[in-house]
């Protein structure tokens, strides 16, 4: 079949099974879903450490009352950029990276549906984040009004303002293209016989997440465009003096923002639903109910946004509607937790690192869900709003929630991706230090919030000192323990014990039928689906 000259020593065993190009151009020009998945994951890992360093600046300043480490304006830039970097730079790209690696292999497709756009989606990201981080060095510093970008405060940003808006647009464009690609792949490229209700849950949760992305990333882009025109082109969308309404910004922002938090957790649900059955050696309990629960959560996520705005002075009917709608989300979420626990029930469980992270996810994410329910009680939220209780809530769902699921996924699929087993002892050490660190870090923040400590401030009243000290100690422990993760990942990429094709005794699904590591191109011929 191959007729052309072989200019390199590249071995071509059979028709067109070419490997990657050599050198840097492999990564810059690649349209291969595995390469792009790797790029996303490495980018995310880098951003995780950048965002983490900012978090440690915040926690160092909050170790004691008074101002010691940074000035208040810089502190505010750190809280703002920490959130933007972690949400858009670490968590979302990690899940897109997992999607790129896994979805084609899980549904038996030869690649993503739009491989060239895939390259573009990724390569926007490093530019967006270079731009965003460069704002720290601009006159007036980086954005400091919080990741929620509320006007009028955000309009006080210095020269950085239009660059921040452009960076947000770039991230948005990247996410939208990624989402289009994922939907087009899942809907059109499944191998014959891979019906929707046979798809692994990770694929299902990503399909639904991608629809959320397409619906809300343009809304974020739209609202920051309106900020831009308010600042530079004389409109007054959010300017009361010109007939606009700043509260309107909050409504639009949270119409994006609440689905956004589910964009960060639904793929995590998918990962956990893959891992628990493997290590419990039982099929997932309630597959269909998992699919319906995911879809219900996605639907409800569009009608709860104003639970972030209980204190802005909505009519009573609004407060009540958003309170009850929010509480409803606990029902499908409860279905999921029930199903995970039932999957483990009487399973032949073993506790390798991915399973440890998955179990910690189930327990600690649920704590975050409960504090969410407390916040959903409108009259109670008048007390909790804008305190550390909110900070504790969303960090429980995002760190031992979304981030732990990403770590579980990394340990679970790394042997498949690299062909090498990671160091299990080091993985367990990483797990235990992380799980202790994360609780020491965030649990005391519940108490601080209930006692009234406001969020986003560099200084605080004396009575909050002890819990803040504990929290900071936890932060440094958690941050430090991530170095074990980094070391373990690097060592696994470089070498290690050979992984088998199935890797885990209980693993099921198309990706485990491929060799470890899989060839550069997989499923160029449709696999047999039973």
């Amino acid at each position, binding site marked *: 079949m*191959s007729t052309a000259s072989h200019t390199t020593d590249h071995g071509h065993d059979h028709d*067109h099974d070419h490997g990657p*190009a050599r050198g840097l151009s492999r990564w810059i020009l690649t349209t291969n879903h595995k390469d792009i998945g790797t790029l996303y994951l490495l980018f995310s890992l880098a951003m995780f450490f950048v965002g983490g360093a900012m978090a440690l600046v915040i926690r160092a300043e909050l170790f004691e009352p008074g101002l010691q480490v940074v000035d208040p304006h810089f502190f505010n830039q750190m809280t703002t950029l920490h959130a933007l970097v972690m949400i858009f730079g670490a968590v979302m790209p990690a899940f897109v990276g997992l999607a790129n690696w896994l979805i084609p292999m899980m549904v038996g497709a030869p*690649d993503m*549906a*739009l491989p060239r756009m895939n390259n573009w989606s990724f390569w926007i990201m490093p530019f967006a984040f270079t731009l965003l981080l460069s704002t720290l060095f601009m006159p007036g510093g980086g954005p400091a009004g919080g990741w929620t970008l509320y006007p009028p405060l955000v309009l006080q940003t210095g020269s950085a303002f239009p660059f921040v808006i452009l960076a947000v647009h770039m991230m948005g464009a990247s996410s939208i293209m990624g989402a289009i690609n994922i939907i087009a792949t899942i*809907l*059109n490229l499944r191998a014959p016989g891979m019906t929707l209700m046979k798809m692994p849950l990770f694929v299902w949760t990503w399909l639904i997440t991608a629809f959320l992305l397409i619906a809300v*990333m343009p809304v974020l882009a739209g609202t920051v465009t309106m900020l831009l025109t308010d600042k530079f082109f004389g409109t007054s*969308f959010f300017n009361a003096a010109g007939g606009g309404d700043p509260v309107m910004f909050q409504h639009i922002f949270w119409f994006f923002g609440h689905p956004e938090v589910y964009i960060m957790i639904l793929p995590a649900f998918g990962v956990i639903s893959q891992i628990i059955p493997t290590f419990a050696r039982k099929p997932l309990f309630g597959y269909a109910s998992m699919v319906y629960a995911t879809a219900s959560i996605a639907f409800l996520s569009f009608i709860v946004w104003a639970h972030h705005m209980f204190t802005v002075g909505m009519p009573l009917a609004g407060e009540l509607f958003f309170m009850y709608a929010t509480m409803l989300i606990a029902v499908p979420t409860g279905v999921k937790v029930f199903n995970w626990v039932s999957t483990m029930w009487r399973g032949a469980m073993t506790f390798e690192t991915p399973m440890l992270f998955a179990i910690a996810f189930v327990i600690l994410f649920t704590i975050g869900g409960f504090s969410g329910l407390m916040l959903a009680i409108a009259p109670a939220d008048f007390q909790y709003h804008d305190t550390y209780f909110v900070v504790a809530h969303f960090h429980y769902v995002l760190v031992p929630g979304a981030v732990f699921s990403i770590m579980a996924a990394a340990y679970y699929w790394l042997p498949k991706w690299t062909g090498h087993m990671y160091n299990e002892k080091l993985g367990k050490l990483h797990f235990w230090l992380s799980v202790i660190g994360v609780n020491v870090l965030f649990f005391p923040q519940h108490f601080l919030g209930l006692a009234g400590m406001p969020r986003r401030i560099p200084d605080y009243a004396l009575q909050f000192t002890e819990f803040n000290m504990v929290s900071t100690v936890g932060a440094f422990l958690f941050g430090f323990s991530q170095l074990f993760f980094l070391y373990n990942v690097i060592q696994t990429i470089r070498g290690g014990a050979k992984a088998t094709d199935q890797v885990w005794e209980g693993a099921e699904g198309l990706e485990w039928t491929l060799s470890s590591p899989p060839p550069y191109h997989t499923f160029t011929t449709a696999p047999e689906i039973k």
Partner: protein
Amino acid sequence: MDPEFAATVPHLHHRARNQVSVQAEPKNAAKSVGANDRAARVGRTAFALAVLAAVFYAGFILMMAVSS
């Protein structure tokens, strides 16, 4: 490789600039599988989703422009 199955993946069909030279099959092998093939369906899906995104973007701005 099954050309119809892999129809949407261009780098499997013709030599990418960065790849060693191998002629797999005629360049237009992917095009020959009829109007309703997977590549066309992918194109239609992507177009529909892009329109959806554009509607959400412009829709919110227009809504705000009209209401304030």
